[in-house]
């Protein structure tokens, strides 16, 4: 027998928990660099979580959105990094 869908929901809930952990660093911060690191971590967790949720709901469209989210969050990270460097 194949995996019970509830497993995927438990895994996704764990991802949510880790994202909340990272949000503590996002709030505390001290420098802007720390905040982007936290944001980047949250982005990775969200992408991984979306892939898992796609398996849970049997919706392929979630994975497509995860791909686009990964690429767009990468562009966002690059923009903020560029801004911090002073090149924007």
């Amino acid at each position, binding site marked *: 027998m194949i995996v019970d869908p509830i497993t995927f929901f438990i895994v996704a809930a764990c991802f949510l928990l880790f994202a909340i952990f990272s949000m503590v660093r996002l709030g505390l911060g001290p420098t802007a*660099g720390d905040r982007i690191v*936290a944001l980047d*971590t949250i982005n990775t967790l969200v992408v991984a979580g979306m892939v898992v949720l796609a398996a849970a709901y049997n919706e392929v469209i979630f*994975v497509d959105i995860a*791909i686009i989210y990964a690429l767009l969050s990468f562009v966002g990270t690059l923009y903020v990094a560029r801004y911090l460097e002073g090149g924007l």
Partner: protein
Amino acid sequence: MNILIYVLFGIGLTFNGLGSFALLRFPDVYTRLHGATKCTTFGSIFTTAAVIAYGFARGGGAYHTLAIHAIIALIALLLTNPTGAHAIARAAYRSGVKPKYAVVDKLEEKK
């Protein structure tokens, strides 16, 4: 097959947890990047691999599509994550954050 999927999820969640824990524990931007980038990328490889294994195990068109799209999502993550980390590290250095407790700093000597 079931056991494989559970094991992959277990490993992935452990490393993702360590990654977000590393964010809280390490002292400065660079060491946090070490923890966050490595552990979350590695953990996400395993959780996505679990979904891929699930898709191929279930079989049929829709599930194969799920697995193939998950592979592409994984490739996107693998390409973008280290590059983003590199950009953040360089930006942090250029915006004037010095590595804490550093024993050597060759980049400082260059300028």
